[in-house]
């Protein structure tokens, strides 16, 4: 009995506070919830990343979204490429002096010579002890060395046939195939291990500096070579920097998730609450409409919408949200039905509060817990749906991309390039987890019955 009185007292106190600042109070409670704040921080961080793609591309990664470096691809994390847009020139001296690069000494630098210069540059980077040859340790540590395939390693004669098409396999047997008698590998023997620039890229590079239009550089035109940069998270099949693409993908993924959820939230809550509150025939009709929408072929709807709206991705995902509201409406309706029989609603009705007011001021706030739980679940659901659509080729249009599209592209390559699925998948998972914790925190903070317990 004593316990009961106490909690009643608390309830009375609470009533007074609520009257003044429900939302301020909720904000305070949210700030105390560490997990939620961590979630908020991470989601915020992702949002900032997404917004600052241009800055990140220029100053952090050094690559742009579409820039392709298609040689020995996909490149693993830590590999190097030569940026084409945002680059710093290396001084034309030493190994990069005009004479050193112009190996055939005809007074002109050609694409092949530029490619060779970068091979030399990469070789020196890999050759940690600087003895001019690679031992197995250095060979295996080279970023382009390929993970050994599972159930077999090719024999030397087989390897000789395919070494033109792929990077060396990180396996002692293959090393022995390539190595000379000394058991080390010279730059000539290193094959694609040190190829960081394709001949096509070398031609582009020349075209960038070539003033005379002869597709070669003379001493006057040669101003040094762009400095290679590291692909921190590796590259995809076209040699595009994964980190840059993920930063851009964040933009699409987050926008899609939030927009579609907002749409589903607005429609679903109003619809479900109205149906649940009014009940009877109206409820029946409204929920039958929801049933009909459920039975509709979602795939067809999306294909149709793709045709109608063309390639406008945002309109499409607003439409996605308009599909998502169905479950929201059902949940809200269920909540409202069980809430509306309760005393506080009866009380409100007796004192003459209007129906609209009862719905929005009393029922919805009290049903907010499950609604928020569901809304936070809708964000990942929509993000996943977007990924699913990309999987079917109906999502983001290339060369734009999203985390879902990146992960579904990565799926095909997961055996040889696990980073392509792990990093986008991780970004997706971390963001979704954070959103969920944030949603939890909000739920707790907004629950009027929970205060000070």
């Amino acid at each position, binding site marked *: 009995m004593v316990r009961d009185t106490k909690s009643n007292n608390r309830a009375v106190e609470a009533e007074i506070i609520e009257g003044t600042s429900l939302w301020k109070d909720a904000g305070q409670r949210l700030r105390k919830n560490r997990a939620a704040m961590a979630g908020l921080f991470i989601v915020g961080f992702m949002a900032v990343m997404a917004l600052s793609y241009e800055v990140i591309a220029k100053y952090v990664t050094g690559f742009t979204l579409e820039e392709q470096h298609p040689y020995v691809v996909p490149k693993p994390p830590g590999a190097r490429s030569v940026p084409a847009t945002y680059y710093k020139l290396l001084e034309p001296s030493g190994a990069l002096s005009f004479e050193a690069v112009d190996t055939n000494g005809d007074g002109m630098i050609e694409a092949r010579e530029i490619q060779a210069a970068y091979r030399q540059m990469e070789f020196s980077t890999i050759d940690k002890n600087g003895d001019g040859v690679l031992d197995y340790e250095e060979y295996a540590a080279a970023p382009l060395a390929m*993970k050994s395939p599972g159930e*077999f390693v090719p024999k030397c004669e087989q390897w000789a046939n395919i070494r033109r*098409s792929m990077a060396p396999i990180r396996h002692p047997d293959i090393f022995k195939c390539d190595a000379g008698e000394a058991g080390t590998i010279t730059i000539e023997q290193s094959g694609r291990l040190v190829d960081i620039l394709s001949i*096509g890229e070398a031609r582009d590079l020349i075209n960038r500096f070539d003033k005379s239009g002869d597709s070669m550089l003379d001493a006057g035109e040669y101003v040094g070579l762009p400095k290679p940069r590291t692909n921190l998270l590796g590259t995809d099949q076209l040699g595009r920097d994964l980190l840059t693409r993920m930063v851009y993908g964040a933009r699409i993924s987050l926008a899609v998730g939030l927009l579609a959820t907002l749409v589903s939230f607005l429609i679903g809550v109003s619809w479900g609450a109205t149906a649940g509150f009014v009940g009877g025939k109206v409820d029946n009709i409204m929920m039958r409409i929801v049933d009909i929408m459920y039975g509709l072929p979602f795939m067809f709807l999306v294909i149709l919408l793709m*045709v109608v709206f063309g390639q406008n991705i945002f309109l499409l995902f607003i439409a996605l949200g308009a599909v998502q509201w169905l479950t929201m409406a059902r949940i809200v309706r269920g909540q409202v039905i069980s809430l509306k029989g309760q005393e506080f609603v009866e009380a409100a009705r007796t004192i003459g509060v209007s129906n609209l007011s009862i719905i929005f001021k009393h029922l919805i706030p009290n049903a907010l817990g499950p609604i928020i739980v569901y809304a936070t679940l809708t964000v990942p659901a929509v993000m996943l749906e977007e990924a699913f659509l990309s999987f079917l080729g109906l999502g983001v249009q290339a060369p734009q991309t999203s985390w879902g599209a990146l992960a579904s592209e990565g799926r095909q390559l997961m055996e040889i390039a696990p980073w392509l699925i792990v990093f986008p998948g991780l970004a997706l998972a971390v963001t979704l987890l954070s959103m969920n914790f944030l949603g939890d925190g909000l739920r707790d903070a907004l629950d009027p019955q929970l205060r000070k317990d």
Partner: protein
Amino acid sequence: MFGPLSTIPRRAICLMLVAACAVSLGACKKSGGEAPAKGGEAAEFVAGSNATVFTFALSADPQTLDPAKMSGSPEGRIAFNLFEGLLMPGPTTEGLSKPEELVVPGVAESYEISEDGTVYTFKLRENAKWSNGELVVAEDFVRSWKRVLTPNFPGDYAQILWVIKGGEAYAKGSDDWDSVGVKAIDAHTLEVTLEHPTPYFPELVAFYTFFPTPAAAIEEHGDAWTRPGNIVTNGPYKLTSYKEQQEMMLDINEHYWDQENVALKRARVRIISDINAVVNAYRTGELHWSGAGLPVAQITGLLAHPDYFKEPMLGTYYYRVNVSDANSPLANPKVRQALALSIDRESLIDETLNGLYTKAESYVPPGMPGYETKTTTSYNVQKARELLSEAGFAEGKGFPRVSLLYNTDENHKLVAESVQDMWKRNLGLDVELVNKEWKTYLQDVSSVQYDIARAGWIGDYNDPMTFLDMFVTDNGNNNTGWSHAEYDQLIASAQAESDTQKRIEMLQEAEKILMEEGPVIPIYYYTNNMLVSRFVEGFKQHNRDIHLLKYLKLPGLAQ
């Protein structure tokens, strides 16, 4: 009622943790560090070690098993083993010098060609039988071909029979079968008269639309005649069971005339649509042959596979250009030339596509016995820029934004993105990529509602005609609006020409026109990349991807 639940939470949490650990373990194992080198030391990989009969994958359920109606490769793969034509494709297309070597005798033991090349007389073997034991006679072929030529017969390849004299007229409703050039002289002699001398007719006869179909079974069961139990076949195998989306079983047809020489008495066809799943099934020892081509994305991981198998294909991957809108710059042949010249096919293939395909510098692929292309479109940015400025778009200025349409597929996307990049870089053109799902793509292409569209053409027979006649004015497969009187004329005279050398020259001339003024930008020639157990004997390169089970042997397989 919820009592027993009280013990569950802890157990469930354990379960959940195990699952989560397993997942993260998987991720870690692959993402982190170097896996312990297995390879050389581990037990040698043997394909199909978990399969009891010869097993291969099929990429989709066949839409039909009726050879008269079918088109498409999964259907063909089954039809070539269930049925047998007068002639059959040989085991390989490599190293042949004459087109006649492409085929081997099937139901026909031998055949003779008349002087002018228009009358073929086939001598049928007397021991050729259906799987119900009945003889295969000349009348079977007459009936089957008549069925295909019936007006409005729903056969995708029905038009291929129009090479027969009077075939087209009959199909269009002439109702005069007597004037169609197919006659059964006696039970074992069939005489076929052709509209034109058709040097590739032997290969056509070895194609499934020309295969005999069992008239009695069709009469009895209607469309359901292809079901297991109803189906009667005359090839080396019969269909014993078929589970949709799962598998088919092919068993030796004990009435087949050559059945003692067929080594594989049984074959299991696994229907696996996702190519990644095919590779997984192969790697777990459930398949002897991957059946379909491998995904480009995975190829570097499979190049070193001991069972990796590569064969050139009679097919071209190209971009078709809509020339029907006179106001579009694409209607200008110079612009199209510039687009074709500014694609660096070598780097596209070597660097982006891992050297999987062969660069295409013309439209007709190499490897056809007796034909060699005389045109090349090589990478030449300088010339491309000149042509573009001659057309009035120096450095791409004033060029409208055109779209490049492709159907949803990783490979098409890779190519399109590279080409988009090259056109931007080399010509300063902005091209928008449009990716549509297959059917919408088909609709856009067949109604010529695109600017530039990805296309692929796999030849039906080893003759340039299969590539060239489609660009004749108003051909149903032209789909570009391109029309060129001289080209049409050359193709028509080549069709009527009985002198091989002259005919080839006309076709070479036509191809030259097509490359210079036509709506075609070739990208690469297809190759077929597969996994085939290295212990399978008799599996040879075939440029139309026809691999008959009857040529294969798998020593040591329990039958």
